[in-house]
């Protein structure tokens, strides 16, 4: 992360990865990535980090917690509907 363009890239990295950057900005970023190994590593590992979180199994609500929720709201009659 040593060139003058690195902070500019860092600021726009999420927009680039989310497909929200303009075509002009994308082209600028890709030109920079061709010549800056550090930024390329950061972009690749940032993209992988996001992917890993998208694939992370979600914690589940325990059936007993659901039961307690219905009871606490006086809605037990709807538990089996």
């Amino acid at each position, binding site marked *: 992360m040593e060139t003058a363009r690195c902070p500019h890239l860092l600021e726009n990295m999420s927009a680039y990865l989310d497909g929200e950057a303009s075509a002009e900005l994308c082209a600028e970023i890709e030109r920079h990535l061709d010549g800056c190994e550090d930024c390329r590593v950061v972009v690749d590992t940032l993209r992988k980090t996001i992917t890993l979180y998208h694939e992370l199994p979600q914690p589940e609500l325990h059936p007993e917690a659901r039961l307690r*929720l219905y009871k606490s709201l006086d809605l037990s009659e709807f538990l089996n509907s």
Partner: protein
Amino acid sequence: MLSEDSDRVLLERLRRGDKSACAECIERHSPGVYRVALRLLGHEAEAEEVMQETFLSAFKAIDKFEGRAGLATWLYRIAHNAALMRLRRAQPEQVSVDDEEAFGEGLPVPTQLHDWCCLPERDFESSETRAALERAIHDLPEKLRVVFVMRELEGLSTEETAQALEISIDAAKVRLHRARLQLREHLSPYFTELAQTEA
């Protein structure tokens, strides 16, 4: 966001005091409310209490809900506020109330520059890695954590996340970006060590 149209119909039934609509609302939204509370608080029993408080408060205040945000977004807002009150009680010095941070300025320069993307898939899917991913979320500052959880894990749009947290869309975008960078920085030593072990 899940079925906004059917949420509008559900909202009308809730406003009429239809108890079966309350049950339907719970079925539809309690898993997400619970997950957000759990990831903010890191404690199952407390997350369950926040979930109960959220639905109790929502059903009591349903007539005051103007419907400018979606029903789910409103429930997330209530859950976040309830969780935040608990965090402030537990760690008052660590949860700032104001919003003075210049989120768009001074992004931390990444220091972890090892490319660990080529690790075998089994390393990314292990229970140890999943635990490391969860720990890294928990170690984020609350302001960044809640945006990351809503936007990235619960799939709310940027606008919905901003509405739920009563912040601007730009603030939501910047906080998400900072959260992602911090998570990458936090996880990189773990994956770098794995990569060096594999080599």
